[in-house]
């Protein structure tokens, strides 16, 4: 195994990338599923190995073709990327395991091999963004992952997915283009695309105006892809109309990768070189984060479609992540990254539970699930735990990131009180929108009557991955040592680049 170790960063991308065309060539959907799931499991194993590497050595670096940067493309995995690699590969694996039961009701057998190929491309694209240390390389992988995501989202039977995907495509392409313009401007001024090199060369650049413009383009571009309020409008519909397992995968990781790029670019390259950039970053993003938390939670309270409810909840949770980052402190960044991890677990569990529900009810609407807990007790219990984690009840993963976030907010002096108030109000609103669903499912009546469905508990093949996710919520709520360690190392790294 040790001979593979230096190649791990490259393998993280290569394994799913090379498996994708093979999967597409498979005639049988079960074979293509098996290959895709195996590739995803390998990717998860590689991610875990990389975490080990990073904990021991700090970083795992790889030079493609042994060309040295800044001429060659270098890959580099540090604490921040390792943590998110776990999220991406984990989400992909859970989604694929669930798809064995869940996909056939939404995607016809003949199309499934191509579907799984697109999934693997998305996985390789997202992994690629995390392992590369080159700005243009990020763009390439961003495009790979976005285009395959569009395919995945449009894969389901719901015709409303098509306009939603188009909106996502339009906004996503604008976002990617803005990012590219920004990178172009920096390249123009520094002559390099390697992030570490950029940071050094920027110090020598005389005219900083193009750099400021570049920062603006990059921030807005990535904010579009990350669904930061008010550029979030593509997200609710895209998550709602996608096939259920696609939502499990994307809700857990897609937007977080864009936030990762934003934070990395900003802290590694801009903070040290633009004067008062920390002030600009903070004052631009903090109000947007606050608005995202409050507005999205209110909308979620009134939403009756279960998937859209959780999608709005995701917009609010992204607000928490951005809030942590905008505090520009080690504590804030730790909280932010921790929440990327913990939210993925919580939301992943909740969407997995919805995927189980969808096997019995044809319409995932709150009016259609009255009393469904009697026939689907395990599914609803999984939803309850995921919901408690989203609320932030102690003993669940969601509580840990909230704790860190509140402590980070308390350190900000004047803003402490309003920020803490916003965080807590957001949590209380989460209680309302989660409990509406729970109450109806346990005490309501008439599940499936609207659409004439027969309700029975979900099969073990999908219940088992769902409940593994449930137990992960509780595990990381009581023993969060690993994510906390990785997050605080990452935060220190980022703060180390401050002037």
């Amino acid at each position, binding site marked *: 195994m040790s001979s593979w170790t230096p190649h791990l960063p490259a393998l993280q991308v290569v394994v799913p990338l090379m498996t994708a065309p093979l999967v597409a060539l498979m005639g049988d959907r079960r074979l293509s599923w098996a290959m895709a799931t195996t590739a995803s499991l390998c990717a998860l194993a590689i991610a875990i190995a990389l975490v080990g590497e990073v904990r021991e050595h700090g970083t795992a670096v790889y030079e493609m073709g042994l060309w040295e940067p800044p001429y060659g493309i270098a890959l580099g995995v540090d604490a921040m990327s390792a943590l998110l690699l776990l999220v991406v590969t984990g989400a992909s694996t859970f989604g694929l395991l669930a798809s064995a039961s869940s996909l056939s009701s939404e995607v016809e057998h003949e199309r499934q091999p191509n579907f799984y190929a697109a999934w693997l491309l998305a996985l390789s694209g997202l992994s690629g963004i995390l392992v590369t240390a080159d700005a243009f390389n990020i763009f390439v992988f961003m495009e790979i992952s976005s285009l395959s995501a569009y395919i995945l989202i449009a894969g389901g039977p719901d015709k409303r997915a098509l306009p939603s995907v188009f909106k996502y495509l339009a906004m996503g392409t604008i976002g990617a283009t803005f990012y590219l313009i920004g990178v172009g401007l920096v390249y123009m001024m520094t002559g390099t695309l390697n992030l570490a090199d950029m940071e050094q060369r920027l110090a020598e650049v005389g005219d900083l105006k193009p750099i400021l413009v570049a920062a603006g383009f990059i921030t807005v571009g990535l904010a579009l892809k990350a669904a930061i309020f008010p550029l979030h409008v593509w997200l609710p519909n895209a998550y709602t109309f996608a096939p259920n397992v696609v939502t499990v995968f994307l809700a857990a990781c897609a937007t977080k990768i864009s936030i990762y790029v934003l934070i990395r670019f900003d802290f590694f390259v801009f903070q040290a070189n633009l004067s008062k950039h920390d002030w600009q970053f903070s004052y631009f993003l903090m109000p947007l984060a606050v608005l995202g938390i409050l507005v999205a939670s209110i909308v979620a309270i009134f939403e009756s479609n279960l998937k859209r409810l959780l999608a709005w909840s995701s917009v609010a949770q992204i607000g928490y992540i951005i809030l942590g980052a905008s505090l520009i402190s080690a504590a804030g960044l730790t909280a932010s990254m921790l929440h990327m991890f913990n939210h993925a677990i919580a939301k992943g569990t909740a969407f997995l539970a919805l995927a189980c529900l969808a096997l019995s009810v044809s319409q995932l609407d709150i009016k259609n699930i009255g009393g469904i807990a009697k026939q689907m007790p395990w599914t609803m219990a999984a939803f309850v735990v995921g919901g408690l984690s989203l*609320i*932030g009840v102690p003993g669940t993963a969601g509580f840990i990131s909230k704790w860190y976030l509140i402590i980070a907010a308390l350190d900000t002096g004047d803003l402490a009180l309003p920020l803490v108030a916003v965080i*807590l109000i957001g949590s*209380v609103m989460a*209680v309302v929108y989660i409990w509406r669903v729970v*109450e109806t499912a346990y*005490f309501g009546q008439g599940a499936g009557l609207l659409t004439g469905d027969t309700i029975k508990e979900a099969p073990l093949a999908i219940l088992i991955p769902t409940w593994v996710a449930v137990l992960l919520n509780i595990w990381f709520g009581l023993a969060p040592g690993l994510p906390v360690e990785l997050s605080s190392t990452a935060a220190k790294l980022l703060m180390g680049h401050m002037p």
Partner: protein
Amino acid sequence: MSLLINDFDPILLTLLIPTVGALAIGIAGRINDNFRETVTLITAGLLAYTVWGIAPEVLDGERPSVKLFDIVPGLEITFNIEPLGMMFACLASGLWIINSIYSIGYMRGNKEKHQTRFYIFFAVALAGAMGIAFAGNLFTLFLFYEALTLSTYPLVSHKGDEKTVRSARVYLGVLLTTSIGLLLPAIIWTYSLAGNGDFVLGGILEDHINGPAIGLLLGLFVFGIGKGAMMPVHRWLPAAMVAPTPVSALLHAVAVVKAGVFAITKIIVYIFGVDFLFSEPSSGWLIYAASFTIIGASLVALQQTNLKRMLAYSTIAQLSYVIMAASVLKPLAEVGAAVHIVAHAFGKITLFFAAGAIYVASKKTELHQLSGIGRRMPWTMTAFSIGALSMIGVPPTAGFVSKWYILAGSFQSDNYVAITTIILSTVLNAAYFLPIVYMAWFGKDSREGQADHGEAPLPAVIALTITAALTILFFLFNGPVLELERQIVEVPR
């Protein structure tokens, strides 16, 4: 007194027994109802045996503790037994046995559905109560506090009909909003001020905070611990009355509400420190807020027509006795506060048992329906009368003992607010309890409800007789409790 399994830490056992018991009840429920009831009683018995087994050590001055693990550096799950927690745990575990006997009579007499679910969540709730009693720091307390809220929700919403679910929503809504919105920031604030949230006699905040911030933090704690039912976060308690009466009896007369005032008292003694708080003027508002709740709740109780709701408002007032006594911040009053936790528990559980017995036997819930019922249900009404006298604070009942100490502490510090409130509320208590007692024994037979009925089922009658007897016995044999609680004020700082 030897402990059950010697290589297992007894503190952890007190958490394990009800949790494992809950699982066992679930399994037993599939086999046979009688088997399930037996498992419940065995679990309750084992728990009481383990808890009471720890008591002699604590009485001697020992403070057993165990650390479970670190969640993150600085946040740990630790248990630490001190006199307040010991007393609360003994109370809850002891009364659980009696309550289980009562539940058997009530649930079967009423032919309630989902009984297995009921007994399972009851056991989980008791595990939560034990965790609260023995918590060694604020985080552990918070963890089990939330667990108690969540595990009692299925009990409150047990009936499942629309009115019940709506009330259960109020229950959960108030308790979760106060705990997430007020208690959690208070805890985090404390951790960031003092570096930890450990319970230490004399408090941990003295050098880290001063001025009006103290009053604010105290307010966040007192109103954040919604289970203490201080106005205006008291709404959940009348809402919880939709639960079956065994729930109201043990949880909302003993476990849940006492967890609330216990936590408030513990925070006053072990986080702020009694002397520190006494020297700070910004904490003075607490006694006024508590007095307001006492008088206010008593006045509302006067207007109630439903028996359980009247008892709920009486409970709100009695809980604020504990808070008010704790806020007098003088040793005798602190002891009085602690003792009132026990005294009120005995009296109130008796009253709720009686209310439930009346419902099972005659389906009566309103006060005016109780006319003449004493003659049909002599055992029940005798117990009720004893409970009522204890609420008023008349010797030879438990209520007299705690009231004596609270009054003595109030006189000691010339606290006229407290003295006036106690006198006024005693009069009000008499005003709403005595007419019921009189009417029940000497009134004309009410035409309503089942005209021809006798006493409640035997298990229910046994339970309420035991608790009524305890109410009187406590007047005579309260030495160990007093000695235990004196330790929280006598240890030198």
